[in-house]
């Protein structure tokens, strides 16, 4: 009996300690993940904090995979992702939290193909883009450009854009080994802007100082720019949703924040940044 009393006393002490340690009032929302969404997430955070001075929203990038790992490890409240959550990631959330992760579509993006402003190529078909990134087409002259070697730029494998592009444009096949993997869309844009024969891909919002290539579904289709109308009408062929993931259905200050993002005000920022609203 004495032993049991000791154990209960000990258990109560531990539980009290844990409650005490967790008792600090939380007014900080942490957001981590997709580099594609960093600019957008920062703009949302700035606007929201200006309207709600008692709330702090901390935004960091790192890639969709990094954000979802942080969500699983409990080091972020919201994971930004430019691809849907993977089955293996749902399994890890299930193991740790007994939930499945809650998905909220917050914006739409047309994955943009960038080339240098000096490149004469202005449109490509999906099959040409695929062949270029698989390393089957290696010279610009094969797609109507100069007689020069194509230099491939892309993202690292923790990027949602990398995964989305591989799964949807390359049909799940591996990128050419000659592709240079860069740690962010801004880095891809920067590399292409300086390399006359470079090609890259990424979010529409980053396309500054580079030329946007029109994309057509197949050789006989019309080529389209990634504009709001073309994405709405499903004419632009490489579109995707941008997501926010939480461990479970959002509650409290996290819910208020996501609700605001989905409001007219939050969606207006989506358009301003260069993405496309979901509402």
């Amino acid at each position, binding site marked *: 009996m004495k*032993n049991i009393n000791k154990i209960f006393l000990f258990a109560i002490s531990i539980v009290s300690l*844990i409650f005490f340690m*967790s008792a600090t009032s939380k007014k900080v929302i942490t957001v981590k993940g997709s580099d594609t969404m960093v600019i957008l997430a920062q703009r949302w955070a700035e606007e929201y904090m200006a309207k709600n001075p008692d709330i702090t929203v901390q935004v960091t990038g790192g890639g969709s995979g990094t954000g979802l790992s942080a969500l699983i*490890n*409990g*080091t972020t409240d919201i994971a930004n992702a430019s691809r849907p959550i993977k089955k293996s990631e749902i399994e890890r959330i299930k193991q740790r*939290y007994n939930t499945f992760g809650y998905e909220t579509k917050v914006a739409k993006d047309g994955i943009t193909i960038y080339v240098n402003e000096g490149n004469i190529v202005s449109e490509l078909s999906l099959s040409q883009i695929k062949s270029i990134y698989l390393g089957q087409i290696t010279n610009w002259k094969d797609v109507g450009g100069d007689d020069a070697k194509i230099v491939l730029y892309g993202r690292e494998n923790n990027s949602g854009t990398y995964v989305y592009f591989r799964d949807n444009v390359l049909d799940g096949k591996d990128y050419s080994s000659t592709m240079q993997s860069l740690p962010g869309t801004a880095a891809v844009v920067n590399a292409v802007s300086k390399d006359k024969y470079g090609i890259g891909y990424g979010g529409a919002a980053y396309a500054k100082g580079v030329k946007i290539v029109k994309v057509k579904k197949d050789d006989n289709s019309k080529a389209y720019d990634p504009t709001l109308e073309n994405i709405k009408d499903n004419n632009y062929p490489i579109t995707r949703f941008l997501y926010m993931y939480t461990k*479970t259905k959002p*509650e409290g200050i996290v819910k208020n924040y996501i609700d605001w993002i989905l409001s007219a005000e939050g969606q207006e920022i989506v358009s301003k940044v260069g993405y496309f609203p979901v509402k």
Partner: protein
Amino acid sequence: MFLLRALFFMCSFCLFIYAQDIQTEQTNANSDTLLEKLKEDLDKAKGTLDGLNESFAETKTTVDKLSKIKISGYIQFQYRMATNYKEATDTTGTGASPLGKTNPVGKYLYPVGDFAGGKFGDGIGSMLQIRRARIKVAYESKLTTGVVQLDCLPFTMSNAVNSVTQAQDTSKKVSTTQTSFLSGGGITLKDAYFRFTDPWIETISLKAGYFDRPFGFEIGYSSSNRESPERSRLFQTLFPLERDLGLSLELVPSGRMPEWLSLFNFKGGAFTGNGINVETDDYLDYIGRFGFSVMSQHLQIGLDGGVSGYFGKVKNYNDTTYFFNADKKIFEPSTGYKYQGINRKYYGLDLQFYASLPFLGGFTLRGEGISGYQPCFSANNSSPKSNVTSSSPVYLRNILGYYLMWVQNIDAINSQFVLKYDSFDPNTLINGNDIDSAHVKLQKVSPADLMFNTLGLGWVYHWNENVKIMAYYEMVNNEKVAPDMIKNKDFFVYTNPIKANVFTLRIQYKF
């Protein structure tokens, strides 16, 4: 005068033009030199850049290869206490038995902690230990995986599976060998396998080596993630050490398959049935699980589950096999079984329900049940876990076991509350009350035929992504035998509820 002035002016002009020409020539010469130098520098820089590019490509190749190697592991350090130490041990030196057998003071009257991380040794009521210290090295490419996992057990763990006192001398040889195997300590192999996945639909995999048996849910649920310190008694008994040597086919639909197909999966194969050790007979055990998983992300509810089957044999090195006669409540011998395989069959069903509670977090209700036939020995109801060859006769029992578990997350404090109840009846055809002094000799039963239930209560605190703290208290209850067995040296302790409760406080570091 005017002419002189004009001449002077013209000469000056000519001199000026001449000087300009010389300067232009010099400037041109300088520009050419500069251009040449710039070109040289540019060539040099280009060469350096090419060199760097080559070096980068080489480094990238190496890094890409290295990134396929993944090292992970965990260490579980714990304190355990037999909370009823005094009641569970002999305090008189008489064996606390009417038979008057003399035991040293502090000797346990029955096993305590045997399914809670290892049996407490005589005279020990609490202990610090490293329960598991594992390191896993995996090489993972898109379609192939190779894994080796080692465990370091610096402490002698005693026998973690044999729950019963040796009742029949015929089984002593078996038990001794198994105990020796388990208590070896040092570094032991936990996993060693490779897996190939088909490149076309990325759905069919072949796995070979030493790995978890594809049966039920709890076997494959990693000890580092589990919310209770140990697996349920039925799994520790029927699947000791969880692993077996074999070859397995896995059908896990990838994203390339239709969505409805990804709700299902199958894992199954052929195994030696001997755990870690080499094959000792011609029999292969066939084990498999057909599983499903459905969920609604919007509603935050889901249900996983599966049906499992185990169809194997255990070789009898004795001519006699004992079958239990349910009408007479006795084990009856049958001869002519030397070197014959005795059926080892289990049927399993497992379900895991997931949902969320507002303000608390997600929870899961898990249940798993197994029934079947277990060929083992008189005083030992556990499956073989090593290449033990015994001349003891095989006893075939009808078994039934299950567990129910509730794990409630309390996200606000990074914790989980755990409630678990498990039950294992190693012989469903006899009740404790049927074992009485009038029939026990004829019955040929032992404490290995008694049912045990365990109720566990736990608290898991996730300090951060690496550290987890667990406090868990489990209360063991046994099937009681007839009161007149108080004079039986093997059963007298089971005439009343035993006192084998164990408290565990564990800190786990995962990396």
